């Protein structure tokens, strides 16, 4: 049991206590709509079929409302492929 593990245990327990408290403070799992107000998601559920024409509201969000996030996501995959190919490249010409 070195000094490092003692410090790790102390601060890890502090972080654990705070995170569990915060988990207990989030609104209860599965709230009714009279309990919590979800304006943004309600708007999307109401209007996504008319505005995007997609029956799948998640696809409507992914490709229309938050399409730029999807572009970034595709870019992340592209970046990972380029990085893997850069690292596994041949060093001789």
């Amino acid at each position, binding site marked *: 049991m070195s000094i490092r593990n003692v410090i790790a245990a102390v601060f890890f327990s502090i972080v654990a206590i705070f995170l569990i408290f915060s988990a207990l403070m989030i609104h209860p799992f599965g709230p009714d709509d009279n309990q919590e107000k979800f304006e943004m998601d309600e708007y999307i559920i109401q209007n996504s079929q*008319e505005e*995007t024409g997609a*029956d799948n509201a*998640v*696809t409507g969000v992914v490709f*229309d409302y938050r*399409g730029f996030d999807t572009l970034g996501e*595709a870019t992340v995959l*592209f970046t990972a*492929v380029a990085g893997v190919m850069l690292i596994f490249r041949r060093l001789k010409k």
Partner: protein
Amino acid sequence: MSGMSKIVKTMTSVAFPLAMIYGLYIIAHGHLTPGGGFQGGAVVASACAMILVSFGSVWTVRKIKEKNLSVLESLGAIGFIGLGFFGLIFGSHFFKNILVGSKNIPIFNEIGQGMSNINTAGFIPLMNFAVGLKVIAGLFAIVLVMAYATRLKEGK
């Protein structure tokens, strides 16, 4: 790694088209059913990975180079961002879904009536195809490069 036994290869070659068709179905119906470009692309890429495992990385690399895969992937990405620029040039904003509701373009323009047609939702099926192409090429390129780099050399 020079491939597995003949039984495995035969079963792979039987199961590969089914997995491929399933993934393409998920990509094509991304805006109607659960799924989309990423999920279907992952299915097809796992089918390609099955080919890779059973036939061996050396054989697969001889069949298809990873350079071509990266070109394919960049084509998919260009298609995806190109649709965004399409919305910027012909529409008003970047990523504007200008095909929805515009009756003058024959395909991909109806709203969701007619009980969930394949050609609804404007840009979304096209974006699904682009992303699907990109994910297939990207994931298969990653798996292929890793497998080829960690292959067992002769004499080891």
